[in-house]
């Protein structure tokens, strides 16, 4: 059983929901990413999604696109991101880490070399925004063979046939994109999310994480009520952008943001 599956199963046994923060590796500086990852864990993260910066992040809104630009201005590469996970693992062997990004940096590194290095560093899952399962037939098995969970996206536009097919290619969890749009847009409609996630639960046994549009304790609780976990990205990345000058202040700001979400999610526990 993968580290992701273990964590999600334990939470489920406790009737709790997963809190899954996203930050972009290398933002505001590559030297600070590992420290921020530990901060996320202290503030209540169950799983970390670590963004791999890309020059052309087509599915992201301006907040995460600018984080990519900041990270790339310091030359943050996929190899460095993997090294950050290795560093993180020296003191945290519990918290699953999912690398989230776009395909081309992996293709440039070579899929086998990437999968080897990621597994060796202690990465647990791979989420590639621009890689639908149809194009992942050669790649996903390389991940699975190394106990890396391939995590795919589901969207409001995904048909039932595709939900079933995509779930069959996924392990760990599936990531439901809560609305039609880019990251950071404030468009979430909780009733629509509830309906669709309920439907997804009927079609797959995998846990369903919901991302896009979760920005505070209230939205986290509303979405946590109907899903197995919430993914929080742009609001954290925006906090990093606004507090990048002072590390202590930044860590406090991230904690102040995540902690109420943790409490709101745990208050749902039955």
């Amino acid at each position, binding site marked *: 059983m993968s580290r992701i599956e273990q964590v999600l199963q334990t939470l489920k046994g406790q009737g709790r929901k997963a809190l899954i923060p996203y930050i972009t590796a290398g933002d505001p500086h590559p030297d600070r990413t590992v420290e921020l990852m530990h901060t996320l864990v202290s503030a209540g993260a169950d799983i970390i999604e670590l963004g791999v910066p890309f020059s052309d992040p087509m599915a992201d809104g301006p907040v995460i696109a600018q984080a990519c630009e900041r990270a790339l201005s310091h030359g943050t590469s996929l190899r460095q991101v993997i090294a950050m996970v290795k560093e993180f693992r020296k003191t945290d062997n519990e918290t699953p880490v999912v690398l989230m990004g776009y395909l081309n940096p992996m293709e440039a590194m070579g899929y086998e070399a990437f999968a080897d290095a990621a597994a060796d560093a202690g990465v647990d899952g791979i989420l590639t925004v621009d890689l639908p399962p149809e194009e992942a037939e050669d790649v996903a098995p390389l991940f699975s063979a190394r106990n890396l969970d391939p995590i*795919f996206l589901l969207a409001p*536009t995904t048909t039932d046939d595709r939900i079933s097919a995509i779930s069959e290619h996924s392990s760990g969890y599936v990531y439901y994109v809560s609305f039609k749009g880019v990251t950071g847009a404030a468009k979430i409609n909780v009733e629509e999310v509830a309906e669709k996630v309920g439907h997804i639960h009927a079609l797959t046994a995998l846990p369903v994480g919901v991302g896009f549009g979760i920005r505070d304790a209230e939205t986290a609780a509303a979405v946590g009520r109907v899903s197995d976990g919430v993914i929080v990205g742009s609001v954290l990345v925006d906090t990093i952008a606004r507090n990048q000058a002072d590390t202590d202040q930044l860590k406090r700001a991230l904690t102040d943001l995540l902690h109420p979400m943790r409490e709101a999610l745990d208050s749902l526990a039955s």
Partner: protein
Amino acid sequence: MSVKLTKEMLSALPDNRGHFGVFGGRFVSETLMDSLMTLEREYLRLKEDPDFQAAFDKDLAHYVGRPSPLYFAERLTRETGGAQIWLKREDLNHTGAHKVNNTIGQALLAAFLGKKRIIAETGAGQHGVATATVCARLGLECHVFMGAEDVQRQALNVYRMKLLGAQVHAVESGTRTLKDAMNDAMRDWVSNVDDTFYIIGTVAGPHPYPLLVRDFQAVIGRETRQQSLDQAGKLPDALVACVGGGSNAIGMFYPFLTDESVELYGVEAGGLGIESGQHAAPLCAGRPGVLHGNRTYLMEDENGQIAGTHSVSAGLDYPGVGPEHSWLKDVGRANYVSVTDEEALDGFRTLTRVEGIMPALESSHAVAYALKLAAGMDKDQMVVINVSGRGDKDIHTIAQLDGIEI
């Protein structure tokens, strides 16, 4: 490595997931998959629908003004002193470039799909103008995404789009050129996928775009083939077209792919020279990767980040290229070469002075290479240059290089 291509081989490309060999495909976020599959299904149906084809042909004849002439450039041929040089005059189309062939086709598709809101990306502005034009004619809401740098260097086209009723969005992210315009168009599309049709301007992007844009542009090559037989009594020995994304080139090449005797030359933007790194020539100097929904040759760094590009011509200033070109390169059917900014400007000046035809800076790359090519060929041979657009939009750029304020 070169293969003889047969009709059977070509009819199997792209495969049902949009692959040309290892290139092409559909690399997009899940939200767009349903729309792309619907578009593919509807396009494949309409492609065989005589009413749809008749509507397309009628618009090309009466709105665009096709067929465009194949013109024998007699004086240019004499001055060059080699093969006969013929010009396929796409610059004479309504709106002044080949781009309109495709926007007419895609606007018809949008109408059949009931979409009322159109988005497009543009580099030089020609595709933006061609999109705004068909939207004006059909009464559709039109949004054009254009890199902020291109907005500056193509001010005339920006104003034309505004006159046509389009909203032009200047894109400030990344390198502020065509690739970033495409990123923002994709972001808009994913946010408005229910009511919006994305008219992609070149043979790149996710399947089925490389297929349908090529089909709409193939009218260029079909006409050229017939006109060559009618006017010269034979097929050309060589075809030369510029390649940014590659839509005018694939449109010219495609109907000739099985004609082994016809050499194909795609001319990329060599910028300040390939060795300078300041260029936009992924087929000449890049490697395969994935960007904007397809696998193709790209300009990228060793970490897979997309590289900045440089070309004097905004329409060629793009780090990728249509996947079918990548395939044609790898199977050896087409030759991909480059000319520098300076050579392209010389091509512009030569064609303007010798034939009284002012080509777009994009097309000037094809002109420049064809002049070198023709000079080394026999007098009884025949070269066709695709003059993909007219140069009026570039007058400011050229005046600026000459130090003249207009």
